[in-house]
């Protein structure tokens, strides 16, 4: 029963998260363009803002239609979990709907249809409210997830139900703010790469050159800042939280099979060998992990050998790879974006074809990094839905058979393949038409 439910949730949420990770970051870049236009009155900034709002709108529609199933799947596939924890996560999820989703969808429509009617200042304001709505959405979703990672403000009744005991604790959760900031900066990385990549494409195609340069410049500047922020302080802060609140998950994601007598090494490369409980082909740097986590070269970090099997994440290799892919890609992003920023400063970037090609083709990788980042959080929490308190096995719908779940999973796969195809065609068409294209 459990397997298909998990697969369906993983598949639908992975597909869904392709879209919000772009819209959250992109809304900030759109606000920036619109603000530049208000300040300088140069038309190209306004066209840039409206062009990216078109891309935003396609992504938003996809986000809505794939997001509604997410909300409902809590009830359909995870009925027991919903029943037991609805009193708490229902709060944050309902707030997401009421405060952010409404805000975002209403003002997106106003931004797209109301420019002439409202004048430029109000138009800027609607853009800003779209940004606010999309970030608030991220905030409430992260608050929900933070509660599952590190439950606070609850009370467990005799019948096993979690009920809310302190509302404000949900938002003072020490897990929330670092996770939220990390997530938002990560979405800014994706959007910066998308903006820069479209810019590089226009320059290489020798089309819309003026916009190509603007997009590339903006994408690189946002990209270099966000790629650095993703590691420090937000990534660092999160890793320390995992080490503090989920030490078993920390050991697994870092690939520490054995506890060392002094400081722990940091693993760069290696494949978890679950039979012999070691890493094959390991390349590691001694003591660095202890320093990064505790600012103490010799501080001991517990390895997986110090935890009981049932405390450890259920899929250690997947968790380990997800984490190392995320970190590895993050490092690549800093490298490429810093290089691009350097040549931008030297005024050579627009002529540097190899770098432009690299930036253009790099665009899928921030998506992969974002999604693997979420896998780290979710796989690390296993075997629990609510960390240490409610097991994943206890959360599924008691009456829905696996045959039915497989049926709906297959349906979602087919439908989302179609959606993905349409999405690519539409985004491709919008990019092809370019920022100066007037009509619908």
């Amino acid at each position, binding site marked *: 029963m459990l397997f298909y439910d998990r697969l369906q949730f993983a598949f639908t949420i992975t597909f869904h998260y392709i879209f919000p990770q772009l819209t959250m970051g992109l809304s900030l870049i759109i606000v920036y363009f619109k603000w530049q236009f208000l300040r300088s009155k140069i038309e190209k900034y306004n066209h840039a803002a409206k062009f990216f709002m078109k891309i935003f709108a396609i992504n938003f529609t996809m986000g809505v239609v794939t997001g*509604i*199933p997410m909300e409902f799947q809590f*009830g359909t596939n995870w009925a027991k979990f919903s029943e037991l924890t609805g*009193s708490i996560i229902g709060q944050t999820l*309902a707030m997401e709907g009421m405060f952010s*989703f409404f805000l975002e969808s209403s003002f997106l*429509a106003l931004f797209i249809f109301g420019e002439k009617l409202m004048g430029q200042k109000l138009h800027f304001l609607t853009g800003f409210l779209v940004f606010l709505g999309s970030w608030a959405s991220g905030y409430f979703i992260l608050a929900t997830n933070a509660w599952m990672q590190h439950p606070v403000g609850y009370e467990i009744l005799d019948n096993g139900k979690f009920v809310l*005991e302190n509302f404000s604790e949900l938002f003072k959760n020490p897990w929330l703010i670092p996770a939220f900031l990390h997530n938002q900066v990560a979405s800014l990385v994706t959007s910066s790469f998308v903006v820069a990549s479209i810019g590089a494409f226009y320059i290489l195609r020798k089309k819309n050159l003026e916009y190509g340069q603007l997009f590339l410049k903006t994408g690189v500047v946002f990209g270099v800042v966000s790629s650095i922020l993703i590691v420090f302080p937000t990534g660092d802060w999160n890793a320390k939280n995992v080490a503090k609140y989920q030490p078993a998950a920390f050991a697994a994601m870092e690939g520490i099979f054995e506890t060392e007598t002094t400081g722990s090494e940091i693993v760069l490369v290696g494949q978890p060998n679950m039979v012999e409980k070691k890493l094959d082909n390991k390349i590691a740097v001694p003591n660095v992990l202890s320093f990064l986590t505790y600012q103490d070269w010799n501080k001991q970090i517990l390895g997986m050998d110090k935890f009981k099997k049932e405390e450890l994440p259920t899929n250690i290799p997947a968790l380990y790879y997800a984490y190392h892919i995320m970190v590895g890609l993050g490092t690549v992003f800093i490298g490429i974006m810093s290089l691009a920023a350097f040549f931008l400063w030297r005024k050579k970037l627009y002529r540097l074809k190899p770098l432009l090609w690299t930036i253009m083709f790099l665009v899928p990788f921030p998506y992969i990094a974002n999604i693997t980042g979420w896998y780290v959080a979710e796989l690390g929490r296993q075997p629990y839905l609510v960390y240490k308190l409610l097991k994943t096995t206890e959360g599924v719908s008691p009456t829905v058979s696996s045959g039915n779940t497989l049926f709906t999973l297959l349906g979602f796969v087919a439908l989302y393949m179609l959606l993905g195809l349409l999405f690519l065609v539409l985004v491709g068409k919008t990019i092809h038409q370019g920022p100066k294209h007037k009509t*619908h």
Partner: protein
Amino acid sequence: MEIFWYIIIAVVLIAFFILDGYDFGAGIIHLFFAKKEEDKEVITKSAGLFWDSNEVWLVAAGGMLFMAFPTFYASVFSGFYLPLIIVLWLIVFRAIGLEFRGQFNYQMWKDIWDKSFGISSLLLALFFGIALGNIARGVNLGGVENGTSTYEAHFFFLPLWNSSFSPLAENPGVIDWFTIIIGLIAVITLAIHGANWIILKTNASIIEQLKSIIFKLNTTLLILTIFSLIVWEIVNPNALDNFVKKPYLIVFPILYLTGITGLFFVKKFKKETTSFLFSSLVIFGGISSSLASMFPAILPSSNNINPSLTIYNTTTNAYGLSVASYWGIVGLILIVFYGIIQKRLRKGKIDQMDYGH
């Protein structure tokens, strides 16, 4: 506090059916009556400009239901697993039909998405009616067979149908002849509502024709309503007890009948909004009457072993409900406020609107 949240959620849900209902209805009318390309285009636009801001009401209702009545949310969503997932797919299909139709300008492309929009609107209306029918009929809570429960008392699972298609079977499916009748009522109601919306928002060439169609559909609706009341008494003998015990609840059915009566005068109204308000009244009256008939139950049990789900046995702790009422009221005020801004910005007929891009 339970009653407060019950009313709030009911209002949000009814708002969803009135608001998104018109674009479902527009889809149904589009499927059967729009023949010319200009009509098709303007009808899809009359739905396409509004569907997403209407569907957020569904998201809000879902979220609040989850928070305030988690046991009900869990029981109903897993119990009606298959129809619910199918509804989700249809919602996706409908949305992509609306959004993608205008993206390429050749007929075959438009025809595909027109059909996708029309058929999924029709099926969604049917499924929403069937859902209401299931709640009116009650379900076999706990999955009772031969006097013993298969699941915990508040869980159940319904197949899409069983071989008899009878609501009187021990384990009726989601689709049986009773729920089909309610489904048809929903389809007709939303078709009328959608036709009113098209009359209100467009200058489509079929407007006069639509008025006669509304009249005919309304006659059918009245007959089906009376028929469904009779069979409802057979399917669920206690169905109308609440109206006898608490006579003031009669106000909801009266609103429903007022709506139907008003719609018979569709050709006489001077203002196009009047007819739209009457069909809104039908939706309001229909749903509120159904809810009132079973209050405080929200999902009646069809067996004698497990009790019905009520707003009291499916809710959460008082603290959670009361803290949520603070942000809930603020949220609702904001939602209504956004809605008004939006509708004002896009007032008037679609054909005369300047899309501004």
